[in-house]
């Protein structure tokens, strides 16, 4: 045991058995005692029968894959989810899909009191795997294990092409197994059929940093690439809840709107009709209205203008002036209305009425200064000015509604793209992916 590795917890430790490879003579230490069925010589890559006192050679394979190195070295010890384990075996497996070979790695972990469990790694995605305690119920579309429903993800043939260390089964390089995966993130249920025997295992997604912390490995874990079959979505679980929250907020918003609409005074404080005369416009056209009082709290003031223009315009420079404080709100409004016929038929543009809402006007005594301008071809035109105090602004609710909606839409879209990425690697790709791949062929 190296000084840096943590001790295995529990009662007195059984001793590891030291043997020699019958092929090359290299020392072999069996760590898993009676649990190892096969052991691989790290020196000559002979697969040996761990149950045989003389370690009979079961298979030899060419280690042409010298670049295959486990990310966690054999013999590494660590505490995985509260239990001490030693890494005793490693294998690389592969599958071919559409002529492309995909590789993943499996690690055998051993604790003398807890037994064997496994870690798998593919493109930086890890799974903590153990053998199922009860037999799942599976059909083509899904499976049920311990009351949890799993969706079929993919079925493929898996080859074993590199092995190292000890294994609790008769491992062979070149061995083919039919693997079927069912997912219920963050868990994956796998059925591995070898000859006529099916072994079921249950895996739970783990992040590389958890593995690195568990085994106190140096450096950083490889960054995960893409979305893995049982990788938990950072957002999917929240989508339904967020839509429920959004619906609740929308109802609150409606209530808020109704309450403020009912309590708004909507008090007309001025309504006058004036006449614009071009003949008089040579002189000063500006004038002021009577003083009106705004009572209550700081609120909105709506200024409405109506002018019966037709293919003309009138423009009004307004200033709402507080008689006492000299505070003023200056704005210009145009009322114009045009209509006619062209090759597309009849058309209209503009309106004969206009409205503007002045924000946050404190109570006090006010008057309007009005300076009209009008179309030069317009000899005279009447126009009506109406001032209403404390009107609700429904646009605020529209903005609030959008502000509530946008995050939910973004989260939903992210969840959708995440799931789309997940299932694009499955036997059941999203509709548009399967049709687009069909087009490519």
């Amino acid at each position: 045991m190296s000084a840096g590795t943590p001790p295995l917890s529990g009662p007195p430790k059984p001793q590891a058995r030291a043997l020699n490879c019958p092929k090359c003579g290299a020392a072999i230490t069996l760590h898993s005692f009676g649990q190892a069925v096969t052991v691989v010589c790290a020196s000559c890559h002979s697969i040996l029968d761990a149950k045989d006192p003389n370690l009979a050679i079961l298979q030899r394979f060419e280690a042409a894959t010298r670049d295959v190195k486990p990310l966690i070295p054999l013999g590494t010890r660590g505490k995985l989810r509260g239990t001490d384990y030693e890494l005793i075996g490693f294998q690389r497996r592969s599958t071919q899909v559409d002529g492309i070979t995909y590789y993943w790695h499996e690690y055998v972990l051993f604790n003398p009191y807890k037994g064997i469990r496994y870690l798998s790694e593919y493109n930086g995605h890890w799974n903590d795997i153990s053998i199922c305690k009860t037999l799942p119920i599976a059909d083509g579309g899904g499976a049920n294990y311990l009351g949890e429903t799993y969706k079929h993800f993919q079925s493929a043939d898996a080859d074993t092409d590199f092995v190292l260390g000890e294994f609790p089964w008769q491992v062979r390089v070149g061995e083919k197994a039919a693997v079927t995966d069912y997912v219920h993130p963050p868990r994956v249920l796998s059925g591995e059929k070898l000859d006529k025997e099916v072994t079921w295992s249950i895996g739970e997604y783990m992040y590389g940093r958890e593995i690195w912390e568990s085994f106190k490995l140096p450096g950083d874990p490889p960054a995960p690439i893409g979305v893995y079959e049982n990788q938990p979505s950072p957002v999917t679980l929240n989508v339904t809840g967020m839509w429920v929250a959004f619906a609740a907020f929308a109802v609150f918003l409606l209530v808020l709107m109704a309450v403020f609409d009912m309590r708004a005074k909507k008090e007309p404080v001025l309504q006058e009709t004036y006449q614009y005369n071009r003949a008089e416009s040579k002189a000063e056209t500006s004038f002021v209205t009577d003083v009106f009082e705004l009572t209550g709290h700081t609120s909105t003031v709506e200024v409405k203008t109506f002018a019966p223009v037709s293919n003309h315009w009138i423009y009004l420079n307004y200033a709402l002036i507080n008689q006492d404080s000299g505070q003023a709100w200056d704005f210009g409004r145009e009322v114009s209305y045009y209509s006619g016929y062209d090759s597309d038929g009849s058309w209209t543009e503009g309106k004969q009425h206009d409205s503007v809402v002045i924000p946050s006007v404190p109570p006090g005594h006010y008057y309007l200064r009005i300076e009209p301008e009008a179309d030069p071809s317009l000899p005279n035109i009447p126009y009506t000015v109406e001032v209403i105090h404390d009107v609700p602004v429904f646009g605020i609710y529209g903005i609030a509604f959008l502000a509530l909606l946008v995050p939910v839409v973004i989260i939903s879209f992210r969840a959708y793209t995440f799931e789309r990425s997940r299932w694009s690697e499955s036997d059941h790709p999203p509709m548009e992916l399967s049709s687009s791949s069909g087009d490519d062929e």
Partner: protein
Amino acid sequence: MFRKLYLLYGALVLSSAGFGQYRGWSLDTVNQLKNVPKSVRDNPGSYRSVYSGYHHYTGGK
């Protein structure tokens, strides 16, 4: 996590909408001025509107 953040965010949005409505917020922009002389009431022509002469007719369709 997201849901809690959204609940907080939503509460903030609703509060802002309610506060804005109470305080008379508006989506229209108007130019605010201070210290307009009281003489404007007697002599409206002495006041120069910010928008005076801004209007340029472009016509209908």
